């Protein structure tokens, strides 16, 4: 508790520590480029480099099954809920950075018989 609060930090490993994991340096360097490159093709090339790095040095995250289907339950009579074949990407339910179902325009959903659902 004698440490200045501004200098307190959780355990961490920095680039000058002996425990530092060298591939991190390469990944950071590529990401720095991605964030600062304004030419989209050059940016994409750096992103593909990151992908290739994972494909050869990984797997850093071990997966099981990609792009399995998710289910949506919709009561009979609720209209305008898009079906899979009406969506350009056939749906995309799992990313946390895109709120679900906001991207499927729930503002446009309606009941075919509103009186039945008023209370």
């Amino acid at each position, binding site marked *: 508790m004698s440490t200045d609060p501004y200098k307190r930090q959780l*355990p961490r490993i920095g680039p000058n520590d002996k*425990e530092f994991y060298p591939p991190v340096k390469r*990944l950071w360097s590529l990401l720095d480029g991605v964030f600062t490159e304004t030419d989209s093709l050059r940016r994409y090339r750096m992103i593909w480099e990151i992908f290739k790095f994972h494909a050869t040095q990984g797997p850093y995250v071990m997966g099981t099954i990609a792009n399995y289907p998710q289910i949506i339950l919709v009561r009979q009579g609720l209209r305008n809920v898009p079906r899979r074949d009406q969506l350009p990407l056939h749906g995309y339910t799992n990313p946390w950075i895109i709120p679900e179902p906001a991207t499927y325009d729930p503002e446009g959903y309606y009941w075919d018989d509103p009186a039945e659902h008023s209370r």
Partner: protein
Amino acid sequence: MTGWKLREYKNPVYSVWERNPYYWCVDKWGNQLPFADRVIWTNIQDPQVMRVQIQQGKADYCDGSFIGLTLADVAGIRSSRSQNDLNILYRDSGSGTGSALYFNLDYHDEKYRDLFREPRFQQALSLAYDRDNARKVIYYDQGEPTTGTLSPKCIQFHVGPGPRIYERWRKSFLGPNLERARNMLDETGVVDKNGDGWRDFPDGSKLEISIDYHGGSQAGGSEYVRKDELLAKSWQQIGIKTNVNPIPTTGYDDSWAAGKIMTMSDQEIGDGPDYPLYPNWLVPVSNFEWPRCAGNGGRCATPTRSGSR
């Protein structure tokens, strides 16, 4: 700005949302949106109670990915169709991994840490994993087996050489290929030193992998735990002693970030849709995906010619 505004909130039971008459959108015929005057969000703590209520018809709309309903629930909902009046729609998850596992590359024990950072070790474990069985048992023969990538919906997989890069990455260490996995482990020196049937560290000390996950009422029987059990079985087949280990949720993430937990096994990569939007899975910028490598509370300084900044 949003279509509905919060009218009533009772934590943790429900929230009521009321139509915003000044919402800025109209449909293509000029009708003011949103159409629904009121939306009620109901929160149900116990997943089994939630399933029963859905089957009894107490919900008008459910988002499976958000509330933990999976393909395993389809039969139950369909069989009670007369009660619940629910149609089942299917949408692509866009998941890059399905249920995934990753090692703590900053694990506090140096021997384990060095092993987890050895690419051939993780590659061997990936090759040993019987994903075909997992696809059948957990995912009802849907989706495609993957080593583990960013979301296949990611735009960088759909332009230029992107599709080829995706396929190469997806298939990079896809098994099951037990013979190749065993050979790779032999190359790393992880062999059975004492003849007990389990592989040991190169120095002869005991090696035991713990597949850890957040314990709690929602964990049992989930796709994550079922996958963990299949993973353990696959790894045991190549001589890696493996246990599946629930850890109390409280303090889990701090222990993970401090390098005290060996694996994270109840996560999944669903992110795209444009890689720089969420770089965390592939580059250490957050200690949830990468523990201390990322520096807790933010990225560590990158070395420069004059040292670090």
